[in-house]
């Protein structure tokens, strides 16, 4: 066995895409409760034309909700993480508490937020923010508790104060961990935003749209909405992966 990976091939990728479309089409032929499992690719594409304007509006509403929730979660996560960094050496239990908080599914916090803030946008955004805050805080704790780097040692040997050496190195050295935390949080934000819209309802948003299509028995529209939700998550992930790769190249 040579152990070498086969070279990437456009033909193989094209074949996989055609196979995936074929599997999708086949799934569209299966009827269980009198309706197809999903709309076929052609039917979903056909639904795109009349739905495009409202789909764009709903996609934008979900993206905005996820972005605002993510931003609020990141700001709160930075503040809570910074506070935890100061306290974690004296009270290591903080680390465990954060891990526990991160394990609470963010969507179960929605009813809490609905009761606390009422049936409004604030409750939805607070739920999204809750989904992001612990990951960001843990990223801050991880970054701050990394062992003293060779760079920091070099600066201290050169005569820099500990604080100055930390200020010159820590932001750069933490960048990788923070970007990974941000990427995880962003994916969570999209998922939580959609589910929150589905559960609590919203005037606009992909989650609300999915529920409306389900109630109307609109398989084509539902399939399109599922694809749009996937596309939103994929694009966010792709953008942040680009940022992560850039940081990795910078650190190399």
């Amino acid at each position: 066995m040579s152990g070498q990976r086969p070279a990437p091939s456009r033909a193989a990728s094209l074949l996989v895409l055609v196979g995936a479309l074929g599997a999708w089409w086949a799934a569209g032929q299966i009827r269980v409760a009198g309706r197809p499992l999903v709309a076929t690719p052609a039917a979903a594409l056909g639904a795109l034309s009349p739905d495009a304007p409202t789909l764009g509006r709903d996609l934008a509403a979900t993206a905005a909700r996820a972005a605002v929730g993510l931003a609020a979660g990141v700001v709160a996560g930075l503040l809570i993480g910074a506070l935890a960094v100061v306290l974690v050496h004296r009270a290591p239990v903080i680390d465990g508490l954060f891990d526990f908080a991160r394990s609470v599914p963010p969507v179960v916090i929605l009813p809490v937020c609905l009761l606390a803030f009422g049936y409004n946008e604030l409750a939805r955004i607070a739920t999204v923010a809750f989904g992001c805050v612990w990951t960001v805080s843990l990223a801050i704790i991880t970054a701050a508790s990394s062992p003293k780097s060779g760079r920091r040692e070099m600066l201290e040997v050169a005569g820099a104060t500990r604080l100055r050496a930390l200020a010159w190195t820590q932001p750069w050295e933490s960048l990788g961990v923070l970007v990974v935390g941000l990427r995880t949080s962003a994916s969570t934000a999209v998922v939580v935003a959609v589910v929150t819209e589905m559960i609590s309802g919203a005037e606009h948003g992909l989650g609300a749209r999915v529920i409306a299509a389900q109630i109307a028995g609109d398989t084509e529209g539902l399939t399109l909405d599922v694809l749009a939700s996937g596309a939103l998550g994929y694009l966010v992930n792709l953008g942040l992966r680009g940022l992560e790769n850039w940081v990795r190249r910078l650190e190399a």
Partner: protein
Amino acid sequence: MSDRTRQESARSGHNEIVAALDRVSVLGGDRPMLREASLSLRAGERVALLGPNGAGKSTLVRVLLGLTAPAKGTVQRAAPGVGCVPQAYAESLFPWFSVLRNVAMPLLVARREDAYDRARSLADRILPGVDPGRRAGRLSGGEKQATALARALASPGDLVIADEPFSAIAASSRERLRRALREELGARALLLVTHDEGDVVDLCERTVRVIDGRTVEASA
């Protein structure tokens, strides 16, 4: 005091101790890494630290730099501004900064106005053919080690400690870099950790061996 005056003063016998260890022991897990090791470095003195792998040379250097605390013994650390080429030289560079900024770093720490001028002159000498504006992360292993050496020589203190500073340097460039180290060192003391007899002959006047965590004086 100018570099020349300092050098003459240092070499004329006015040799105050710039850094020293006295009967220092360091524990590392199940066995001691240093056992009552002693070493003193006088101003302008160039000392080679020899010994087999794992004997405790790098630990001794870390103690001298104040990066590892001894379990026993006393340490007289050098004044701030020590130049250092660590064994893990690549991890000591700032990959996101330029070569020039990396070399200037000790002078920037010391808030010297001529930081970049001095760094440029050292970079030109030690890294000829390397763009000083190039990001340090983009350098080859040998270029990174040469950058760490240039940075150590830019340091404003009285002591340069170099832990195998030529280990990644191509044989064809070693002689040039040895000469640069010898000349740019000026009046500063040098502690050179090496396995290369050529380094000892070219650069050092005194040799200390580290054997199983103990220091043994030997003539160069």
